């Protein structure tokens, strides 16, 4: 339960960054924190009490096309697969955001939101 | 059919004689009221003959030429469309040709002609007069329409003959007494219709020569003169039919129209003149309010 709460807290903290921080980089950091929170949530959703990693490489576990291990003792592999994708996507978004900020900085020599309120109304 | 035309001619000639006479009397009375001697009552006959005898020399254009014709035509038309003496073969005129609405609209015909001719002369004063006239018309027509519509609804007809016959049977059956307020409104409107003092700003004889006929002379003027006289008589007859119970014989018609005439003349002789907008405002207030009293009475009934 604490994992759920913590990851939710991370998400909210990240959101808080996006809502309140006036510095573009800090907003990006907020987004990253949010990503992390979600990733953590995904992983913790897949957890099974007393389970092992979903890698069945020991001979004792698999013979003659049948699984010898108790299925319920293997943690859910799907969230792990999902989180992999989610991480990469988070990285990609962060990279894009950073590149945009780099361009913005090169134009205005500033990374404060107050300097970027040209488009409005 | 043809004898009708003959009768019509008779009425026109008679009406003209009567109209010119009334005009003369009016001039005389006004002069006396002003402390002058004034012309003879036959002055208008003299003038007319003089004008007809004069040769017409110039014209300002087609419309200028046609206007007196229209004017004359309008006068004849109005006179012939109202029944002078009801149930008389001769003097009920062409009133079979139409009813009150027709008369009301045909009255404009002659005025329009005159206005057009006047404007064609190119004289600014002669154009000014029709605009004043039309404005004033918008003024006096409101009380007049109130009384006419009131009567039409009250008697459930727009036929003049029916209106007259509805008023038969004693003086108290006259609309003048049946609907006194409508009558007051109608008679005030009539003062405007005659464009005499205090509503004479249209012709304004002193300031802008003589209004529409400024540029006219000789024969043309005589036509207008004639038209105006006939028109006047027509209107007296109309008012007689509307309010004074019409006439059952010629004498009654003379008396009644003469009474109306005197009413107009005496008021004319006494009052100073309104400006156009003052006249319009006047017409839209007092006579309208007075007329509406009866109008609403009829509406509720």
């Amino acid at each position, binding site marked *: 339960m604490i994992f759920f709460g913590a990851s939710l807290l991370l998400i909210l903290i990240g959101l808080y960054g996006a809502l309140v921080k006036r510095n573009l980089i800090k907003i990006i950091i907020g987004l990253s924190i949010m990503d992390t929170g979600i990733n953590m949530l995904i992983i913790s959703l897949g957890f*099974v009490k007393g389970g092992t990693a979903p890698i069945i490489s020991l001979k004792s576990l698999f013979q003659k096309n*049948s699984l010898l291990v108790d299925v319920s003792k293997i943690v859910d592999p799907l969230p792990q697969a999902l989180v992999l994708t989610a991480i990469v996507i988070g990285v990609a978004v962060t990279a894009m955001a950073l590149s945009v900020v780099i361009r913005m900085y090169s134009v205005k020599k500033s990374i404060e939101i107050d300097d970027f309120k040209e488009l409005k109304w | 059919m043809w004898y009708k035309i003959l009768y019509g001619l008779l009425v026109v000639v008679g009406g003209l004689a009567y109209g010119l006479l009334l005009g003369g009397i009016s001039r005389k009375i006004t002069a006396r009221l002003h402390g002058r001697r004034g012309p003879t009552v036959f002055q208008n006959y003299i003038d007319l003959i003089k004008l007809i005898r004069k040769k017409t020399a110039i014209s300002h254009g087609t419309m200028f030429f046609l206007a007196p014709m229209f004017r004359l035509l309008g006068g004849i038309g109005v006179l012939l469309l109202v029944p002078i003496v009801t149930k008389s073969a001769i003097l009920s005129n062409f009133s079979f040709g139409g009813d009150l609405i027709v008369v009301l609209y045909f009255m404009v015909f002659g005025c329009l002609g005159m206005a057009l001719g006047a404007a064609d002369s190119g004289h600014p004063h002669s154009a000014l007069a029709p605009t004043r006239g039309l404005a004033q018309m918008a003024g006096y027509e409101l009380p007049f329409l109130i009384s006419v519509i009131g009567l039409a609804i009250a008697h459930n007809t727009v036929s003049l003959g029916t209106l007259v016959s509805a008023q038969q049977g004693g003086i108290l059956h006259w609309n003048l007494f049946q609907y006194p307020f409508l009558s007051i409104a109608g008679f005030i409107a009539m003062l405007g219709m005659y464009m005499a003092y205090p509503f004479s700003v249209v012709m304004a004889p002193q300031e802008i020569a003589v209004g529409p006929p400024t540029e006219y002379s000789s024969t043309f003027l005589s036509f207008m003169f004639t038209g105006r006289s006939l028109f006047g008589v027509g209107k007296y007859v109309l008012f007689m039919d509307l309010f004074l119970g019409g006439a059952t014989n010629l004498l009654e018609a003379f008396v009644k129209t003469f009474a109306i005439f005197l009413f107009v003349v005496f008021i004319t002789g006494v009052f100073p003149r309104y400006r156009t907008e003052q006249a319009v405002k006047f017409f839209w207030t007092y006579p309208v309010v007075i007329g509406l009293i009866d109008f609403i009475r009829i509406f509720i009934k």
Partner: protein
Amino acid sequence: MRKIVAIVFLAIIGFYIISIFSAFQFGDKYKGVSEHYVKEGIIENRGANLVTSIVVNYRGFDTLGEVTVLFLAATGLSFLLFSCKCEREFKRIKSSLVLRTATDTLFPMILLFGAYIFIHGHLTPGGGFQGGSVIASGVMLLFLSFRSFHPNHKTLSTIEVLAGISFAGIGLLGLVYAKSFLANSVLPLGQWNRLISAGVIPLIYIAVGLKVGAELSGLISDMISTTKED
């Protein structure tokens, strides 16, 4: 003011979201498709690493998308940063001797380790992305150590392209041979827990590893370099 409003509304959202966790017991058993993956995963794919089976095979389409996202990020980044046709410039401070010497030794090993990770993706923890990232970290080390280092972008993109095409191509092969995209029946599945097993999974992971490595390297290089100021 803004902070207070933010906290209030975030608290409301948090309040509602947290309410759902009461329905999910932490560490609870799972049901549904994962059961299938765990039970049948090895039988169907012969890959020891179930996560890899899922990533590459069951949800290979996601991975293709994931690769695309990364590719997109790399392309977009260079598209944005070098939109003007200026010269590129690398401004870096000189690094210490220790770092350089260490890099000399470590770099090949890092590369090797990265390659190991993605080649053994179907057997051990790790896989294409992880391996690729390790490789990119080696390249980053190069950037940090050698001032004059800049990667050959042509080579990088060639690797990237070939890897990408082979991933999609393998998928299409599956369509041709097994009537379904990314089907794992082009190659024989082989024996469980062997290096050469699990059909096309290792091949795909190799392609992914190379691609991710090249892309991340390119990304790093793009971020470090700046356009020359006039």
